[in-house]
């Protein structure tokens, strides 16, 4: 566990090294002119995204778990899909569609004579909506996994005592799912904090952007690293407060009985449910993906297929698969360990290990450079002594550095989902298993993992798709001649013609879709097994 924390601390150490030069002059300047507006913009953006993702994520998760309605089977796996689209690409798409010269305003002008300038996406409101509709799946996935495993008995009991569906949602379902919702919301907000491309393009000057301008324009890497450190401290403090909030309460509401049957709605209610789920799917996925598809056709990207894309896709999937496997193993391992050990030091280590997500990707990559290369130097020296051969920088040169960055960055997803999943399993179960003589390993295998499987698959899906589209760390840490789909898309986007990368962007989605479908199904099957056949504790 300490090793895991050390791994996550490596880039922070590198960052601290960069920050360890005083630059008093820059701070006077930053405090006077840069940070106040950047902080205000950042808080407004975070507040807005929190509101959108919470309402959309929790709302849709509740609807698909609680009700039966037309199209539900398809919507279950359509709802997470916006995840597979890079946020900045969606920002570009919406500017193209909604700007003054775009098709929507043109149509409004032609038919109704409106000049619909309020549709201006290049604004704070635009950024909130774009990011909200791309990032709500983080909340949706967490909330759905929790709603699904909610005890039928609890729900039935509440119903018997006359709770209607709204009261049920407000008093039972939501509070019990709070850890998962909080975890999902945290991820969505940290993703927002990590964004540079969309906010710069939409003209929202955030703290993250000010880290970059301080580094590249104000010429102060220490100043930039210091802002990043402060941001990290703020995030860590908020996370700690949130954890404290739910750790004192019990959320164990899971038992071995059958799931609550989904309620049947009135005719109108059914179609309302369908519509409510279709809105985020449309804005977060169908519109941007449709736009990309039309660009693929219009630009003949399929006809003039760039064969290198196959190689890039294979590279992308391989890196993401390896990183996901490691991240889930480490993350769930850590979450289980914390549960079994119940030791504050272990908990602190795990909380530290989750900090990687709170750093913008480029900052993480910058911080990783020196520790990774220090290991590389050591390996090289060792090989030179033993074999008398200079192998150069093995980790940097092989792409292993990218995997390390992914694991550090996305560990908190696995830990968060793991802990939220395990929090639902009563400690009574552990105690009962222990009295029957079960060992820790057997208990994890037969009780914890099966019961936490929906959370596990949810986390795996998120990590995998996040790895597929990760850009900044990949960009800076990849070996010569290696591209992933997202770095490939990016080279068109930096030149201002992201449409040329439309096919590669869709390939990210295409790789993501089977993963989403498969994991949604696995999660459901796992749940089915878990709730219908009580695990046998080892004797």
């Amino acid at each position, binding site marked *: 566990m300490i090793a895991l924390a050390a791994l996550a601390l490596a880039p922070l150490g590198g960052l601290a090294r960069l920050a360890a030069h005083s630059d008093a002059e820059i701070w006077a300047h930053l405090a006077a*002119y840069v940070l106040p507006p950047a902080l205000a913009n950042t808080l407004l953006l975070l507040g807005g995204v929190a509101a959108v993702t919470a309402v959309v994520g929790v709302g849709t998760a509740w609807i698909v778990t609680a009700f039966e309605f037309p199209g539900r089977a398809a919507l279950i796996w359509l709802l997470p899909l916006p995840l597979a689209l890079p946020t900045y690409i969606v920002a570009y798409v919406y500017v193209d569609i909604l700007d003054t*010269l775009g098709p929507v305003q043109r149509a409004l002008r032609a038919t109704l004579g409106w000049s619909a300038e309020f549709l201006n996406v290049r604004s704070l409101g635009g950024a909130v909506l774009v990011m909200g509709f791309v990032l709500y799946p983080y909340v949706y996935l967490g909330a759905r996994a929790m709603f699904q495993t909610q005890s039928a008995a609890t729900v039935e009991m509440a119903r018997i005592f006359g709770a209607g569906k709204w009261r049920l949602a407000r008093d039972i379902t939501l509070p019990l799912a709070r850890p998962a919702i909080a975890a999902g919301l945290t991820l969505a907000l940290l993703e927002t904090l990590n964004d540079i491309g969309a906010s710069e393009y939409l003209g929202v000057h955030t703290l993250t952007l000010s880290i970059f301008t301080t580094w590249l324009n104000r010429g102060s890497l220490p100043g930039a690293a210091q802002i990043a450190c402060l941001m990290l401290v703020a995030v860590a403090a908020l996370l700690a407060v949130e954890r404290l909030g739910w750790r004192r309460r019990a959320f164990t509401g899971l038992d071995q009985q059958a799931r609550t049957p989904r309620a049947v709605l009135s005719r109108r209610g059914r179609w309302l449910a369908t519509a409510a789920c279709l809105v985020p799917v449309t804005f977060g996925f169908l519109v941007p993906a449709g736009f990309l598809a039309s660009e693929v056709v219009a630009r003949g990207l399929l006809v003039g297929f760039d064969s290198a894309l196959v190689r890039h896709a294979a590279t992308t999937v391989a890196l993401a698969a390896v990183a996901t496997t490691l991240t889930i193993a480490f993350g769930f391992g850590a979450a289980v360990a914390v549960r079994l050990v119940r030791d504050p030091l272990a908990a602190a280590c795990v909380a530290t290990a989750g900090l990687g997500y709170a750093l913008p990707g480029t900052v993480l990559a910058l911080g990783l450079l020196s520790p990774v290369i220090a290991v590389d130097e050591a390996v090289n020296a060792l090989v030179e002594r033993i074999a008398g051969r200079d192998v150069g920088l093995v980790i940097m040169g092989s792409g292993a550095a990218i995997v390390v960055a992914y694991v550090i960055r996305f560990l908190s997803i696995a830990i968060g989902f793991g802990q939220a999943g395990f929090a639902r399993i009563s400690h009574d179960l552990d105690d009962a298993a222990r009295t029957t003589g079960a060992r820790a390993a057997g208990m994890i295998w037969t009780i914890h993992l099966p019961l936490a499987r929906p959370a596990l698959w949810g986390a795996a899906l998120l990590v995998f798709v996040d790895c597929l589209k990760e850009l900044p760390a990949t960009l800076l840490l990849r070996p010569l001649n290696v591209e992933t789909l997202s770095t490939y898309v990016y080279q068109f986007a930096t030149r201002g013609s992201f449409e040329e990368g439309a096919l590669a962007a869709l390939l990210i989605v295409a790789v993501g879709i089977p993963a989403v479908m498969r994991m949604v199904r696995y999660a459901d099957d796992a749940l089915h097994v878990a709730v219908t056949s009580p695990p046998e504790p080892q004797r």
Partner: protein
Amino acid sequence: MKVSLRIAGTLVVTSLMASAAFAQSGEVNVYTYRETKLIQPLLEAFTGATGIKVNVISASSGLEQRIKSEGTHSPADVLLTVDIGRLEDAVQAGISQPISSPLLDQVIAPQFRDPEAHWYGVSLRARVVYASKDRVTQSAITYEELAEPKWRGKICVRSGQHIYNNALFAAVITKYGVDKSEEWLRGLKANLAQKPSGGDREAARDVAAGKCDLGIGNTYYWALMHDREADKKAWAEATKVILPTFVGGGTHVNLSGVVLAKHAPNKANAMKLIEWLVGEKAQHMYADMNYEYPVRAGIALNPTIAGYGPLTPDPMPIAKIAQNRKAAANLVDKVGFDN
């Protein structure tokens, strides 16, 4: 998952073999801020001409930091940049070495190279005005004029912290000093039609949409939209490019340039590449494919670029502009340009 693990394993092994091969002759390793796709044709032509294989990594920031961290084992031979700022950053980071080439000194004007020979420009781009064809009648303009009240609420531009604007503002400081430049920048800020956002293409888009009369952008974006991007041709056609000048001076130009890495493992090949880039063939390619101004004299411009009229670069040494980048960034903060 098993299959992907196997793929990953193969990948790791092959890249290990590849990284071991880098040290061998017949290769050169290029770290570039310029997108791979854009320079690929140039590099392929180089390989065709010399048989030297080119390995590439591109990124948008942090390459100096990477080379610096990689230290003596860095595979980097050559760093290509799209902006004067990054050239200066590379020198400051201590990752460059002087390039000694009589050919480069002969071909590239002193204004466009480092006095200490740590970097050389290979192509130029100018920061110009996209003016509305309908609403702007004048055919000449000065940078000074952009701050005059006659343009109140009529100018669109991307973030003042973007490297291209940063270099333009640094050039103004080089000309007029910080105090007068602050006044100028406040004037320009007052003339903006909207909060800075988007990229250089949006400057043309917004002029075409009637949001403003003047957009500020680089020379090649307009040409790309006009010649190559059918969906954006209308934006270019709604505007005309005016090459602004400083009063009594010329047009602000920025450089894409080249640095020789301090620990370049393939130095001889790196020198061949650098010299090839300013050769006639490569310079023609820069002009025709990338719509840039060749740094070498006597190379024909792309017809669309030539259509802007003759370019007279301002005579200030580019190295001087680089020194004022930080001051320019601070001014942008101070006048709240992006707020």
